[in-house]
Protein backbone atom coordinates (compact mmCIF):
# COMPACT_ATOMS: atom_id res chain seq x y z
CA UNK A 1 0.00 0.00 0.00
CA UNK A 2 2.81 2.33 0.89
CA UNK A 3 4.36 1.53 -2.43
CA UNK A 4 1.14 2.33 -4.13
CA UNK A 5 1.16 5.70 -2.50
CA UNK A 6 4.72 6.25 -3.61
CA UNK A 7 3.79 5.45 -7.15
CA UNK A 8 1.08 8.02 -7.23
CA UNK A 9 3.09 10.57 -5.25
CA UNK A 10 4.71 11.75 -8.43
CA UNK A 11 1.32 12.41 -9.93
CA UNK A 12 0.10 14.62 -7.13
CA UNK A 13 1.55 17.89 -8.46
CA UNK A 14 0.00 17.13 -11.81
CA UNK A 15 -3.32 16.41 -10.18
CA UNK A 16 -3.08 19.58 -8.22
CA UNK A 17 -2.60 21.46 -11.46
CA UNK A 18 -5.66 19.86 -12.96
CA UNK A 19 -8.01 20.08 -10.02
CA UNK A 20 -7.01 23.08 -7.97
CA UNK A 21 -8.83 26.23 -8.89
CA UNK A 22 -5.98 28.48 -7.80
CA UNK A 23 -2.76 27.48 -9.48
CA UNK A 24 0.20 27.36 -7.23
CA UNK A 25 3.29 28.97 -8.68
CA UNK A 26 6.84 28.08 -7.77
CA UNK A 27 8.48 31.20 -6.33
CA UNK A 28 11.86 30.54 -7.96
CA UNK A 29 10.17 30.10 -11.32
CA UNK A 30 8.32 33.35 -10.91
CA UNK A 31 11.59 35.01 -9.99
CA UNK A 32 13.24 33.61 -13.12
CA UNK A 33 10.31 34.82 -15.20
CA UNK A 34 10.60 38.31 -13.81
CA UNK A 35 14.34 38.33 -14.33
CA UNK A 36 13.96 37.22 -17.92
CA UNK A 37 11.83 40.29 -18.65
CA UNK A 38 14.53 42.70 -17.51
CA UNK A 39 16.75 44.46 -20.00
CA UNK A 40 19.99 46.14 -19.06
CA UNK A 41 21.82 49.01 -20.77
CA UNK A 42 23.98 48.00 -23.72
CA UNK A 43 27.67 47.57 -22.95
CA UNK A 44 29.41 49.34 -25.78
CA UNK A 45 33.00 48.59 -24.97
CA UNK A 46 34.47 45.42 -23.58
CA UNK A 47 37.89 44.42 -22.34
CA UNK A 48 39.48 42.18 -24.94
CA UNK A 49 41.21 39.68 -22.62
CA UNK A 50 42.27 36.17 -23.45
CA UNK A 51 40.70 33.31 -21.56
CA UNK A 52 43.66 32.70 -19.28
CA UNK A 53 43.84 36.30 -18.13
CA UNK A 54 40.08 36.21 -17.63
CA UNK A 55 40.49 33.20 -15.35
CA UNK A 56 43.18 35.01 -13.40
CA UNK A 57 40.94 38.07 -13.16
CA UNK A 58 38.11 35.99 -11.71
CA UNK A 59 40.47 34.28 -9.32
CA UNK A 60 41.84 37.63 -8.17
CA UNK A 61 38.32 38.90 -7.65
CA UNK A 62 37.71 35.82 -5.53
CA UNK A 63 34.80 34.61 -7.62
CA UNK A 64 34.19 30.89 -7.35
CA UNK A 65 31.38 28.43 -7.75
CA UNK A 66 30.09 29.35 -4.29
CA UNK A 67 29.14 32.74 -5.64
CA UNK A 68 26.67 31.27 -8.10
CA UNK A 69 23.47 32.34 -6.45
CA UNK A 70 20.95 31.97 -9.21
CA UNK A 71 20.11 28.35 -9.71
CA UNK A 72 18.44 28.72 -13.03
CA UNK A 73 17.45 31.25 -15.62
CA UNK A 74 14.59 31.39 -18.01
CA UNK A 75 16.06 32.51 -21.32
CA UNK A 76 13.09 34.53 -22.44
CA UNK A 77 14.41 37.99 -23.17
CA UNK A 78 12.23 40.58 -24.91
CA UNK A 79 15.31 41.40 -27.01
CA UNK A 80 14.83 38.12 -28.88
CA UNK A 81 11.06 38.18 -28.84
CA UNK A 82 11.08 41.60 -30.47
CA UNK A 83 12.08 40.15 -33.82
CA UNK A 84 10.43 36.76 -33.74
CA UNK A 85 8.83 34.51 -31.23
CA UNK A 86 8.61 30.97 -32.49
CA UNK A 87 9.84 28.90 -29.61
CA UNK A 88 9.08 28.55 -25.96
CA UNK A 89 11.85 29.82 -23.68
CA UNK A 90 14.76 27.69 -22.54
CA UNK A 91 15.28 26.84 -18.90
CA UNK A 92 18.97 27.16 -18.29
CA UNK A 93 20.29 25.39 -15.21
CA UNK A 94 22.91 27.99 -14.40
CA UNK A 95 24.31 26.51 -11.21
CA UNK A 96 24.43 23.03 -12.63
CA UNK A 97 26.28 24.18 -15.71
CA UNK A 98 28.69 26.15 -13.58
CA UNK A 99 29.42 23.10 -11.45
CA UNK A 100 29.75 20.86 -14.48
CA UNK A 101 32.00 23.15 -16.50
CA UNK A 102 33.82 24.49 -13.47
CA UNK A 103 35.09 27.44 -15.45
CA UNK A 104 33.08 30.65 -15.49
CA UNK A 105 35.11 32.05 -18.38
CA UNK A 106 33.61 29.53 -20.78
CA UNK A 107 30.54 31.74 -20.93
CA UNK A 108 31.67 34.93 -19.18
CA UNK A 109 34.37 35.31 -21.82
CA UNK A 110 34.78 39.11 -21.75
CA UNK A 111 33.97 41.82 -19.29
CA UNK A 112 32.85 45.42 -19.76
CA UNK A 113 35.61 48.00 -20.01
CA UNK A 114 34.01 49.92 -17.17
CA UNK A 115 35.96 48.90 -14.07
CA UNK A 116 32.92 49.30 -11.81
CA UNK A 117 30.90 46.77 -13.76
CA UNK A 118 30.41 43.25 -12.51
CA UNK A 119 33.03 40.70 -13.43
CA UNK A 120 30.35 38.27 -14.57
CA UNK A 121 27.94 40.39 -16.53
CA UNK A 122 24.81 38.83 -17.93
CA UNK A 123 24.83 37.79 -21.60
CA UNK A 124 22.21 40.34 -22.60
CA UNK A 125 24.38 43.25 -21.48
CA UNK A 126 26.69 42.87 -24.45
CA UNK A 127 24.60 40.75 -26.79
CA UNK A 128 21.37 42.48 -27.67
CA UNK A 129 19.72 43.09 -31.01
CA UNK A 130 21.23 41.38 -34.06
CA UNK A 131 22.78 43.27 -36.95
CA UNK A 132 23.43 46.49 -35.07
CA UNK A 133 25.12 48.58 -37.77
CA UNK A 134 27.27 50.37 -35.20
CA UNK A 135 28.62 47.11 -33.79
CA UNK A 136 28.53 44.82 -36.81
CA UNK A 137 30.74 42.08 -35.38
CA UNK A 138 28.80 41.83 -32.13
CA UNK A 139 26.39 38.92 -32.48
CA UNK A 140 22.85 39.21 -31.18
CA UNK A 141 21.55 37.59 -28.01
CA UNK A 142 19.81 34.74 -29.77
CA UNK A 143 22.91 33.83 -31.76
CA UNK A 144 25.10 34.19 -28.69
CA UNK A 145 22.98 31.69 -26.80
CA UNK A 146 22.78 29.23 -29.66
CA UNK A 147 26.43 29.43 -30.62
CA UNK A 148 27.60 29.11 -27.04
CA UNK A 149 25.26 26.28 -26.04
CA UNK A 150 25.44 24.22 -29.22
CA UNK A 151 29.16 24.55 -29.72
CA UNK A 152 29.85 23.35 -26.18
CA UNK A 153 27.27 20.58 -26.32
CA UNK A 154 28.77 19.37 -29.58
CA UNK A 155 32.33 19.61 -28.37
CA UNK A 156 31.63 17.83 -25.13
CA UNK A 157 29.25 15.39 -26.86
CA UNK A 158 26.87 16.15 -24.00
CA UNK A 159 23.61 17.98 -23.86
CA UNK A 160 21.00 18.45 -26.56
CA UNK A 161 21.68 20.09 -29.91
CA UNK A 162 18.17 19.84 -31.34
CA UNK A 163 15.49 22.50 -30.92
CA UNK A 164 13.15 20.81 -28.48
CA UNK A 165 16.05 19.44 -26.46
CA UNK A 166 16.33 22.85 -24.80
CA UNK A 167 13.23 24.80 -25.75
CA UNK A 168 10.20 23.99 -23.66
CA UNK A 169 7.47 22.44 -25.63
CA UNK A 170 4.27 24.34 -25.88
CA UNK A 171 2.14 22.52 -23.32
CA UNK A 172 -1.58 23.15 -23.62
CA UNK A 173 -3.64 23.63 -20.49
CA UNK A 174 -4.71 20.16 -19.39
CA UNK A 175 -7.64 21.42 -17.36
CA UNK A 176 -9.97 21.07 -20.31
CA UNK A 177 -8.30 18.04 -21.82
CA UNK A 178 -8.36 15.70 -18.84
CA UNK A 179 -11.64 14.55 -17.44
CA UNK A 180 -11.27 12.74 -14.12
CA UNK A 181 -13.75 11.93 -11.38
CA UNK A 182 -13.35 13.63 -8.01
CA UNK A 183 -10.67 11.98 -5.89
CA UNK A 184 -9.39 9.70 -8.65
CA UNK A 185 -7.25 6.72 -7.76
CA UNK A 186 -3.74 6.29 -9.25
CA UNK A 187 -4.94 3.76 -11.77
CA UNK A 188 -7.51 6.19 -13.17
CA UNK A 189 -4.89 8.92 -13.42
CA UNK A 190 -2.36 6.75 -15.22
CA UNK A 191 -5.07 5.58 -17.57
CA UNK A 192 -6.00 9.16 -18.34
CA UNK A 193 -2.36 10.02 -19.11
CA UNK A 194 -1.92 7.01 -21.36
CA UNK A 195 -4.98 7.88 -23.40
CA UNK A 196 -2.85 10.44 -25.27
CA UNK A 197 0.71 9.74 -24.17
CA UNK A 198 0.90 6.10 -25.20
CA UNK A 199 4.34 6.49 -26.81
CA UNK A 200 5.69 7.90 -23.57
CA UNK A 201 4.12 4.94 -21.79
CA UNK A 202 5.97 2.56 -24.11
CA UNK A 203 9.21 4.48 -23.68
CA UNK A 204 8.85 4.42 -19.94
CA UNK A 205 8.89 0.63 -20.00
CA UNK A 206 12.46 0.74 -21.27
CA UNK A 207 13.75 3.04 -18.59
CA UNK A 208 15.21 2.35 -15.17
CA UNK A 209 12.07 3.81 -13.62
CA UNK A 210 10.28 0.73 -14.75
CA UNK A 211 13.05 -1.83 -14.86
CA UNK A 212 14.82 -1.20 -11.58
CA UNK A 213 15.39 -4.09 -9.28
CA UNK A 214 16.88 -3.72 -5.87
CA UNK A 215 16.40 -2.93 -2.24
CA UNK A 216 13.99 -0.29 -1.17
CA UNK A 217 15.69 0.96 1.96
CA UNK A 218 13.19 3.76 2.51
CA UNK A 219 10.01 1.76 1.98
CA UNK A 220 8.61 0.67 5.30
CA UNK A 221 8.08 -3.04 5.42
CA UNK A 222 10.04 -3.69 2.27
CA UNK A 223 13.48 -2.65 3.38
CA UNK A 224 15.03 -5.99 2.65
CA UNK A 225 13.10 -6.92 -0.47
CA UNK A 226 15.43 -6.91 -3.39
CA UNK A 227 13.15 -8.10 -6.13
CA UNK A 228 10.77 -5.24 -6.02
CA UNK A 229 10.41 -2.85 -8.85
CA UNK A 230 7.66 -1.55 -11.00
CA UNK A 231 8.20 -4.24 -13.57
CA UNK A 232 7.62 -7.02 -11.07
CA UNK A 233 5.20 -5.75 -8.50
CA UNK A 234 3.22 -3.94 -11.09
CA UNK A 235 0.69 -1.81 -9.36
CA UNK A 236 -0.77 0.13 -12.21
CA UNK A 237 0.39 -1.94 -15.13
CA UNK A 238 -1.53 -1.33 -18.31
Amino acid at each position, binding site marked *: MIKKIMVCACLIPFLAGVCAAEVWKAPDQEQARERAKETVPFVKEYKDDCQISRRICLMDAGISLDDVTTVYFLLDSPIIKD*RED*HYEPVRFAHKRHAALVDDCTQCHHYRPKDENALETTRCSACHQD*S*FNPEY*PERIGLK*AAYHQQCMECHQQEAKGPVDCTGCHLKHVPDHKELVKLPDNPDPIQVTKACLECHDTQGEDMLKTAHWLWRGPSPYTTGHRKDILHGKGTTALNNF
Partner: protein
Amino acid sequence: MQITRRHFFRVMGVAGASVAVRPPAGHAWQSKAPPDPYGCLVDLTRCVGCRKCEEACAEVNCLPEPERVNCQCTIFEKDRRPDHDAYTVVNRYYTGKVDEFDKPVPTFAKVQCMHCQDPACVSACIVGALTKDETGTVRYDVTKCIGCRYCMVACPFEIPAYEYHDPITPKVMKCTFCYDRISKQGGVPGCATICPTEAITFGRRDTLLEVAKQRLKNNPARYLPHIYGEKEVGGTSWMYLSGVPFEQVNLPALPETPSPKLSETVQHSLFTYLWSPILLFGVLGGLMAWFNKNDNPPDKGGV
Protein backbone atom coordinates in the same frame (compact mmCIF):
# COMPACT_ATOMS: atom_id res chain seq x y z
CA MET B 1 25.51 64.44 -111.18
CA GLN B 2 22.99 61.71 -111.19
CA ILE B 3 23.31 59.16 -108.41
CA THR B 4 22.62 55.75 -109.73
CA ARG B 5 21.53 52.92 -107.51
CA ARG B 6 24.83 51.19 -108.09
CA HIS B 7 26.80 54.30 -107.26
CA PHE B 8 24.82 54.78 -104.05
CA PHE B 9 25.66 51.33 -102.80
CA ARG B 10 29.27 51.73 -103.74
CA VAL B 11 29.52 54.89 -101.66
CA MET B 12 27.71 53.29 -98.75
CA GLY B 13 29.95 50.27 -98.86
CA VAL B 14 33.07 52.41 -98.66
CA ALA B 15 31.55 54.46 -95.84
CA GLY B 16 30.66 51.33 -93.91
CA ALA B 17 34.09 49.85 -94.38
CA SER B 18 35.76 53.01 -93.14
CA VAL B 19 33.64 52.93 -89.96
CA ALA B 20 34.60 49.31 -89.49
CA VAL B 21 38.29 50.03 -89.77
CA ARG B 22 38.08 52.79 -87.18
CA PRO B 23 37.91 51.49 -83.59
CA PRO B 24 34.39 51.80 -82.25
CA ALA B 25 33.90 55.08 -80.45
CA GLY B 26 31.49 53.54 -77.87
CA HIS B 27 32.19 54.18 -74.17
CA ALA B 28 34.17 51.65 -72.16
CA TRP B 29 31.90 49.32 -70.18
CA GLN B 30 30.86 50.76 -66.87
CA SER B 31 29.47 48.96 -63.84
CA LYS B 32 25.95 49.96 -62.87
CA ALA B 33 26.29 48.59 -59.35
CA PRO B 34 24.52 50.60 -56.62
CA PRO B 35 27.00 52.51 -54.42
CA ASP B 36 25.98 51.28 -50.97
CA PRO B 37 23.90 48.13 -51.25
CA TYR B 38 22.74 45.83 -48.49
CA GLY B 39 24.11 42.35 -48.33
CA CYS B 40 24.25 39.19 -46.34
CA LEU B 41 27.27 37.31 -45.12
CA VAL B 42 26.71 33.57 -44.83
CA ASP B 43 29.17 31.90 -42.50
CA LEU B 44 29.12 28.20 -43.32
CA THR B 45 31.13 27.37 -40.21
CA ARG B 46 28.22 28.62 -38.12
CA CYS B 47 25.39 26.96 -40.01
CA VAL B 48 23.94 23.98 -38.14
CA GLY B 49 21.57 22.88 -40.90
CA CYS B 50 18.33 23.50 -39.00
CA ARG B 51 16.61 24.78 -42.16
CA LYS B 52 14.77 27.46 -40.24
CA CYS B 53 15.74 29.87 -43.04
CA GLU B 54 13.76 27.77 -45.48
CA GLU B 55 10.79 27.83 -43.16
CA ALA B 56 10.97 31.57 -42.57
CA CYS B 57 11.47 32.26 -46.27
CA ALA B 58 8.37 30.30 -47.17
CA GLU B 59 6.36 32.10 -44.50
CA VAL B 60 7.52 35.59 -45.44
CA ASN B 61 7.11 35.07 -49.18
CA CYS B 62 3.85 33.10 -49.02
CA LEU B 63 5.40 29.96 -50.49
CA PRO B 64 4.33 26.41 -49.62
CA GLU B 65 5.81 25.05 -46.42
CA PRO B 66 9.12 23.28 -47.10
CA GLU B 67 9.23 19.51 -47.14
CA ARG B 68 9.75 17.96 -43.69
CA VAL B 69 10.37 21.21 -41.83
CA ASN B 70 11.12 19.73 -38.46
CA CYS B 71 12.90 16.59 -39.54
CA GLN B 72 16.42 16.67 -40.85
CA CYS B 73 16.80 12.88 -41.17
CA THR B 74 16.49 12.23 -44.87
CA ILE B 75 16.03 15.61 -46.50
CA PHE B 76 19.78 16.15 -46.94
CA GLU B 77 20.24 12.90 -48.82
CA LYS B 78 19.45 14.59 -52.11
CA ASP B 79 21.12 17.71 -53.38
CA ARG B 80 18.40 20.31 -53.78
CA ARG B 81 18.17 23.52 -55.76
CA PRO B 82 15.94 26.56 -55.27
CA ASP B 83 12.84 26.07 -57.40
CA HIS B 84 9.38 27.51 -57.98
CA ASP B 85 8.38 26.44 -54.46
CA ALA B 86 11.46 27.55 -52.55
CA TYR B 87 13.62 30.64 -52.89
CA THR B 88 16.27 29.11 -50.69
CA VAL B 89 17.39 25.62 -49.72
CA VAL B 90 20.07 24.25 -47.42
CA ASN B 91 22.23 21.36 -48.58
CA ARG B 92 24.56 19.14 -46.63
CA TYR B 93 28.04 18.28 -47.89
CA TYR B 94 30.57 15.82 -46.57
CA THR B 95 33.85 17.27 -47.72
CA GLY B 96 36.22 14.89 -46.00
CA LYS B 97 36.47 17.07 -42.91
CA VAL B 98 36.59 14.93 -39.76
CA ASP B 99 36.44 15.67 -36.06
CA GLU B 100 38.88 14.34 -33.44
CA PHE B 101 37.12 10.98 -33.43
CA ASP B 102 37.50 10.67 -37.22
CA LYS B 103 33.79 11.18 -37.62
CA PRO B 104 32.91 13.04 -40.82
CA VAL B 105 31.77 16.60 -40.15
CA PRO B 106 29.03 17.90 -42.41
CA THR B 107 29.07 21.38 -43.89
CA PHE B 108 25.72 22.97 -44.56
CA ALA B 109 25.34 25.54 -47.30
CA LYS B 110 22.37 27.72 -48.01
CA VAL B 111 21.65 28.49 -51.68
CA GLN B 112 19.70 31.49 -52.91
CA CYS B 113 19.99 34.35 -55.40
CA MET B 114 23.34 36.04 -54.83
CA HIS B 115 22.01 39.46 -55.88
CA CYS B 116 25.07 40.22 -58.02
CA GLN B 117 26.36 43.74 -58.18
CA ASP B 118 26.22 43.58 -61.98
CA PRO B 119 23.65 40.88 -62.55
CA ALA B 120 23.76 38.83 -65.72
CA CYS B 121 20.02 38.25 -65.51
CA VAL B 122 19.30 41.99 -65.51
CA SER B 123 21.56 42.43 -68.52
CA ALA B 124 19.97 39.50 -70.34
CA CYS B 125 16.38 40.57 -69.67
CA ILE B 126 15.12 42.11 -72.89
CA VAL B 127 12.10 43.84 -71.37
CA GLY B 128 13.57 45.21 -68.15
CA ALA B 129 11.53 42.93 -65.91
CA LEU B 130 14.62 42.41 -63.77
CA THR B 131 16.31 45.43 -62.22
CA LYS B 132 19.06 46.02 -59.73
CA ASP B 133 17.72 48.23 -56.97
CA GLU B 134 19.54 50.77 -54.78
CA THR B 135 19.15 48.41 -51.83
CA GLY B 136 21.12 45.77 -53.69
CA THR B 137 18.07 43.68 -54.49
CA VAL B 138 17.67 42.16 -57.94
CA ARG B 139 13.96 42.77 -58.34
CA TYR B 140 11.56 41.02 -60.63
CA ASP B 141 8.52 42.68 -62.14
CA VAL B 142 6.07 40.08 -63.29
CA THR B 143 3.98 42.60 -65.24
CA LYS B 144 6.87 43.22 -67.64
CA CYS B 145 8.08 39.65 -67.92
CA ILE B 146 7.38 37.93 -71.24
CA GLY B 147 8.60 34.54 -70.08
CA CYS B 148 11.61 34.25 -72.36
CA ARG B 149 13.70 32.75 -69.53
CA TYR B 150 16.91 34.38 -70.78
CA CYS B 151 17.62 35.21 -67.12
CA MET B 152 17.70 31.51 -66.31
CA VAL B 153 20.30 30.90 -68.99
CA ALA B 154 22.33 33.96 -68.08
CA CYS B 155 22.59 33.41 -64.31
CA PRO B 156 26.05 32.09 -63.40
CA PHE B 157 24.59 30.50 -60.27
CA GLU B 158 21.61 28.92 -62.07
CA ILE B 159 19.15 30.44 -59.61
CA PRO B 160 16.00 31.72 -61.37
CA ALA B 161 13.33 29.03 -61.59
CA TYR B 162 10.18 29.01 -63.66
CA GLU B 163 6.63 28.03 -62.85
CA TYR B 164 6.38 25.48 -65.63
CA HIS B 165 3.31 23.93 -64.05
CA ASP B 166 1.32 27.15 -64.47
CA PRO B 167 0.21 27.55 -68.10
CA ILE B 168 -1.69 30.83 -67.62
CA THR B 169 0.39 33.12 -65.40
CA PRO B 170 3.81 31.59 -64.96
CA LYS B 171 6.42 33.62 -63.10
CA VAL B 172 10.17 33.52 -62.76
CA MET B 173 10.82 32.61 -59.15
CA LYS B 174 13.88 33.66 -57.22
CA CYS B 175 14.89 35.14 -53.88
CA THR B 176 13.48 38.63 -53.44
CA PHE B 177 16.00 39.60 -50.72
CA CYS B 178 12.78 40.30 -48.81
CA TYR B 179 12.67 43.68 -50.54
CA ASP B 180 9.47 44.72 -48.78
CA ARG B 181 11.16 44.20 -45.45
CA ILE B 182 14.68 45.53 -46.07
CA SER B 183 13.50 48.65 -47.86
CA LYS B 184 11.92 49.71 -44.57
CA GLN B 185 13.96 51.12 -41.71
CA GLY B 186 15.40 48.33 -39.58
CA GLY B 187 14.02 45.59 -41.81
CA VAL B 188 15.88 42.30 -42.03
CA PRO B 189 15.28 39.41 -44.46
CA GLY B 190 13.21 36.55 -43.06
CA CYS B 191 16.04 34.02 -43.18
CA ALA B 192 18.49 36.28 -41.36
CA THR B 193 15.93 37.10 -38.69
CA ILE B 194 15.24 33.50 -37.80
CA CYS B 195 18.76 32.07 -38.09
CA PRO B 196 19.53 30.82 -34.57
CA THR B 197 23.30 31.04 -34.86
CA GLU B 198 23.54 34.21 -36.94
CA ALA B 199 25.11 32.21 -39.75
CA ILE B 200 23.48 34.89 -41.90
CA THR B 201 24.60 38.41 -41.03
CA PHE B 202 22.64 41.20 -42.63
CA GLY B 203 24.01 44.68 -43.19
CA ARG B 204 25.60 47.07 -45.64
CA ARG B 205 27.85 45.20 -48.04
CA ASP B 206 30.92 47.29 -47.18
CA THR B 207 30.39 46.70 -43.46
CA LEU B 208 29.97 42.98 -44.05
CA LEU B 209 33.22 42.86 -45.98
CA GLU B 210 34.93 44.44 -42.99
CA VAL B 211 33.27 41.94 -40.66
CA ALA B 212 34.31 39.07 -42.90
CA LYS B 213 37.90 40.26 -43.06
CA GLN B 214 37.93 40.62 -39.30
CA ARG B 215 36.67 37.06 -38.86
CA LEU B 216 39.31 35.73 -41.25
CA LYS B 217 41.98 37.63 -39.34
CA ASN B 218 40.82 36.56 -35.88
CA ASN B 219 40.25 32.93 -36.79
CA PRO B 220 42.58 31.90 -39.61
CA ALA B 221 42.34 28.21 -38.70
CA ARG B 222 38.58 28.18 -38.96
CA TYR B 223 38.24 29.71 -42.41
CA LEU B 224 39.69 29.54 -45.88
CA PRO B 225 41.25 32.92 -46.62
CA HIS B 226 38.66 33.92 -49.19
CA ILE B 227 35.40 35.79 -49.16
CA TYR B 228 33.24 34.20 -51.81
CA GLY B 229 31.26 36.91 -53.53
CA GLU B 230 33.64 39.76 -52.80
CA LYS B 231 35.00 39.65 -56.33
CA GLU B 232 33.23 36.74 -58.05
CA VAL B 233 31.41 37.98 -61.17
CA GLY B 234 32.24 41.51 -60.15
CA GLY B 235 30.96 41.08 -56.59
CA THR B 236 27.69 39.86 -55.15
CA SER B 237 25.48 41.17 -52.37
CA TRP B 238 25.38 37.77 -50.72
CA MET B 239 28.79 36.57 -49.64
CA TYR B 240 30.09 33.39 -48.07
CA LEU B 241 32.78 32.39 -45.60
CA SER B 242 33.70 28.75 -45.38
CA GLY B 243 36.10 26.34 -43.76
CA VAL B 244 36.02 23.96 -46.72
CA PRO B 245 36.75 24.66 -50.41
CA PHE B 246 33.90 26.56 -51.99
CA GLU B 247 33.67 24.25 -55.02
CA GLN B 248 32.88 21.39 -52.64
CA VAL B 249 29.80 23.15 -51.32
CA ASN B 250 28.51 23.94 -54.78
CA LEU B 251 29.79 27.49 -55.00
CA PRO B 252 31.50 27.40 -58.39
CA ALA B 253 34.80 29.10 -59.15
CA LEU B 254 33.87 32.11 -61.27
CA PRO B 255 35.89 34.84 -62.94
CA GLU B 256 36.14 38.25 -61.37
CA THR B 257 34.80 39.98 -64.46
CA PRO B 258 31.13 40.83 -64.21
CA SER B 259 29.19 38.54 -66.55
CA PRO B 260 27.53 41.39 -68.50
CA LYS B 261 30.86 43.07 -69.21
CA LEU B 262 31.77 40.90 -72.19
CA SER B 263 28.28 40.56 -73.63
CA GLU B 264 27.44 44.23 -73.22
CA THR B 265 30.81 45.34 -74.60
CA VAL B 266 30.33 43.17 -77.66
CA GLN B 267 26.78 44.35 -78.11
CA HIS B 268 27.55 48.02 -77.58
CA SER B 269 30.56 47.98 -79.89
CA LEU B 270 28.52 46.33 -82.58
CA PHE B 271 25.78 48.91 -82.52
CA THR B 272 27.66 52.17 -81.88
CA TYR B 273 26.57 54.62 -84.59
CA LEU B 274 24.82 51.67 -86.18
CA TRP B 275 28.07 50.89 -87.95
CA SER B 276 27.54 47.17 -88.08
CA PRO B 277 24.18 47.20 -89.86
CA ILE B 278 25.49 49.85 -92.19
CA LEU B 279 28.53 47.76 -92.96
CA LEU B 280 26.43 44.66 -93.41
CA PHE B 281 24.08 46.31 -95.86
CA GLY B 282 26.97 48.02 -97.56
CA VAL B 283 28.73 44.73 -98.17
CA LEU B 284 25.51 43.11 -99.31
CA GLY B 285 24.86 46.00 -101.65
CA GLY B 286 28.35 45.80 -103.01
CA LEU B 287 28.02 42.09 -103.62
CA MET B 288 24.71 42.59 -105.34
CA ALA B 289 26.18 45.28 -107.55
CA TRP B 290 29.11 43.13 -108.43
CA PHE B 291 26.95 40.15 -109.31
CA ASN B 292 24.61 42.33 -111.36
CA LYS B 293 27.50 43.71 -113.38
CA ASN B 294 28.88 40.29 -114.16
CA ASP B 295 25.53 38.80 -114.95
CA ASN B 296 24.61 38.28 -118.58
CA PRO B 297 21.59 40.20 -119.69
CA PRO B 298 18.51 38.07 -119.33
CA ASP B 299 17.71 35.88 -122.26
CA LYS B 300 14.69 37.39 -123.89
CA GLY B 301 14.46 35.07 -126.80
CA GLY B 302 13.13 32.04 -125.10
CA VAL B 303 13.21 28.64 -126.56
